[in-house]
């Protein structure tokens, strides 16, 4: 039984948490690619920016003498999302829109977004230094332990992990309803499908571009903050997970929102399964196992976790180049 709980904690819960964050990031990347036709390299830093905006807002709130048993981050999150959206629209106006107006190629926009990445990282380091910050200076991180009958270990997860996974699911449902039911959501899918025809149907492409940034940046702030609540706030917080996020967007089929969600969780689970020590599950049979079975049986060592997303990406591109949901090939 202990082995089962260990598996739940280290694979199911960790996979859900990582997958949720990857999915939220990958949705933004895939939507932006679908509408603007370029790989938004600065998406990771937009997540980091969102986390830092949340952090500053909690400082302001704490400075005003507000305190709560819950992390203040939960309360300021809507405002942080709004500010991140304004920042994203500002970045688009300043850097990407002028390039689009000149008919720049997608690769030019990609390079510009690498520039934005460096700028954002530089800006964050300039203002906050290179150190790490925590959302849990004032209140402790609540840890839930659900006892399991017949096991000495308990199913363990933190409150921000639970909140993060639930909010991710709600955000995905809201996005689904928006894309399938609302007029602007359908127009957004139409623009991704055939921008020229959308234009001759009278759809204002610029408005749809703004809407795409609003959704992408909003979800990025959400993902960045949940990641920061799970670990810590630091300048390279989300830049480090840019690879799995892009892998999820590509594996899911570029431009395919549902593909990005599925692939986000797929990569999240693949990573934790790959670094999971399988010998733990074999422990009950230890006596009957031959001697040559090693004590650690992980597919890859933890330090190489990042290669998992890369391997999945390469295999997908070899076997099914348009992704599992048949996205745009480019």
């Amino acid at each position, binding site marked *: 039984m202990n082995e089962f709980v260990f598996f739940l904690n280290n694979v199911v819960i960790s996979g859900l948490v990582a997958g949720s964050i990857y999915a939220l990031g990958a949705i933004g990347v895939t939507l932006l690619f679908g509408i603007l036709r370029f790989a938004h390299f600065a998406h990771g830093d937009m997540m980091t920016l969102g986390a830092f905006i949340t952090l500053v807002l909690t400082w302001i709130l704490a400075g005003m003498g507000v305190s709560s048993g819950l992390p203040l981050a939960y309360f300021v999150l809507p405002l942080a999302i709004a500010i991140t959206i304004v920042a994203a629209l500002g970045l688009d106006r300043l850097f990407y829109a002028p390039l689009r107006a000149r008919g720049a190629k997608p690769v030019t926009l990609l390079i510009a977004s690498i520039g934005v990445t460096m700028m954002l990282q530089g800006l964050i380091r300039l203002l906050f230094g290179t150190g790490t910050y925590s959302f849990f200076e004032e209140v402790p991180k609540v840890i839930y332990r659900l006892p399991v009958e017949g096991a000495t270990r308990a199913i363990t997860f933190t409150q921000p992990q639970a909140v993060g996974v639930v909010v991710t699911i709600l955000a995905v449902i809201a996005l689904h309803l928006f894309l399938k039911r609302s*007029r602007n959501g*359908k*127009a957004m*899918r*139409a623009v991704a*499908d*055939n921008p*020229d*025809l*959308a*234009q*001759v*149907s*009278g*759809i*204002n492409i610029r408005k749809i571009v703004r809407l795409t940034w609003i959704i992408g940046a909003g979800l990025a702030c959400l993902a960045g903050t949940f990641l920061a609540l799970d670990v810590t706030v630091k300048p390279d917080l989300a830049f480090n997970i840019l690879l799995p996020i892009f892998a999820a967007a590509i594996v899911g089929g570029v431009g395919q929102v549902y593909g990005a969600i599925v692939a986000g969780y797929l990569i999240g689970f693949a990573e934790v399964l790959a670094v999971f020590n399988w010998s733990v599950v074999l422990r009950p049979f230890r006596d009957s196992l031959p001697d040559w079975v090693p004590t650690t049986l992980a597919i890859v060592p933890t330090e190489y976790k990042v290669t998992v997303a890369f391997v999945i990406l390469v295999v997908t591109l070899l076997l099914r180049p348009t992704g599992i949901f048949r996205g745009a090939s480019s």
Partner: protein
Amino acid sequence: MSLIDLSSVVAGYGGVPILNGVDIAIDASDIGVIVGPNGAGKSTTLKAIFGLLKVSAGAIRFAGADITNARPDALVPMGLGYVPQEKNVFPSLTVQENLEMGAFVRTDGSGDTLASVYEMFPPLREKRRQKAGELSGGQRQMVAMGRALMGKPKLLMLDEPSAGLSPKYVLEIFERIVAINRGGVGVLMVEQNARQALAIASRGFVLAGGKNLFTGTGRALLDDPEVARSFLGGAKPA
């Protein structure tokens, strides 16, 4: 006052102009057909009207208003509908969603128009939940025309509506075009099936080298021996 009136329109994609002074005028009661050899500027004329490329000289008036170089999202609410020749559906959207996109600019309800589009193209009602990308060529053309009709246009512009369709569908599409026109919508279309198209046209325009070569009623162009020899593939069959 004509519904659409192009006078000496010069237009192109920057650099050398493709249209070198095109004159076209039709009324709401007309079906206007533009014919001519490849590269004559037929499709370009429709794109110029719809603001998809730069008009450098001349003027385009729609129902009396100057619309030269206006943007498509301004033209659709004014009552212009345009069906491009290729890629004229949203493949991953359902048939009904495609039609809804045609009514995107409308602020009034579009339920009645949707019902009338389904009445005009019954197969679309059956396939309304299917993705447009999964339909046959003829059905796609119906979706494309239906989408344009959803905007309640005063002028419907069609770029080669019969291209790539089987003869059965060509006839069906032409019948629908006549019906749309009888409903009070002016039609301006480009066609390769010149003879068949001119037969339903009240106004015909032969373009070559970006200029008008002949202008007249559809009948007059069909009967003109010069037009028949140069652009309709020989004399009219008996």
